[in-house]
């Protein structure tokens, strides 16, 4: 962890503008931001809420790995990955990724790499709660 990488897992709401402000710099020409939001439906069923759980110490470690790998692969300036835990409702923000760079291609590539990899490796789980039941996403064949 250093001052070009900001990783956080928190039960508190994420603050988009503060995340962007952290990454902005007069050294940068472009910032790419990915904001995940809770959809009110999945596969045609209404989603009442999501419940996120994390293996926090390992999740922070894996998120830090992603940020370090992105910094090594692309000429980026700063990268921030914040993920929320607990109960979230449609429209809420579970994840924010911000990448600043001198040139936009690196920011786009690194940001997309970060969210794609987060979804594959970071030990965070979500349960979708519907009107008539609930399911842990991706758990079953």
């Amino acid at each position, binding site marked *: 962890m250093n001052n070009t990488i900001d990783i956080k897992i928190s039960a508190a709401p994420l603050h988009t503008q503060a995340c962007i402000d952290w990454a902005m710099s007069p050294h940068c020409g472009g910032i790419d931001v990915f904001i995940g939001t809770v959809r009110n439906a999945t596969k045609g069923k209404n989603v009442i809420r999501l419940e996120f759980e994390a293996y926090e110490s390992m999740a922070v470690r894996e998120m830090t790995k992603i940020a370090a790998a992105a910094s090594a692969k692309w000429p980026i300036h700063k990268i921030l990955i914040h993920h929320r835990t607990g109960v979230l409702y449609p429209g809420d923000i579970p994840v924010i990724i911000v990448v600043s760079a001198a040139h936009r291609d690196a920011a786009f590539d690194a940001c997309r790499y970060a969210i794609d990899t987060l979804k594959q490796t970071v030990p965070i789980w979500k349960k979708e709660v519907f009107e008539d039941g609930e399911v*842990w996403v991706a758990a079953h064949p």
Partner: protein
Amino acid sequence: MEIKVLAFGIVKEMLSHSSVTVALTEGATVSELTLVLAEKYPAIKNLSSFAIAINGCYSTADTLINAGDEIAIIPPVSGG
């Protein structure tokens, strides 16, 4: 040796606990742990897959387990 195994998400529900303790022989590997877990908690065989983390890192089948390691069952992740 007695090994404490952390459970998260659906595994915590399957095991009804946030951690369980299993007995392993000294020098056991992750593949032996997996067999013991599947026998004692057959529900986890219903998962599409799962990994074992040792001290916060993904392991492979032949990773050795030592007394005092922090062990966790990692069902398919779904963050973001």
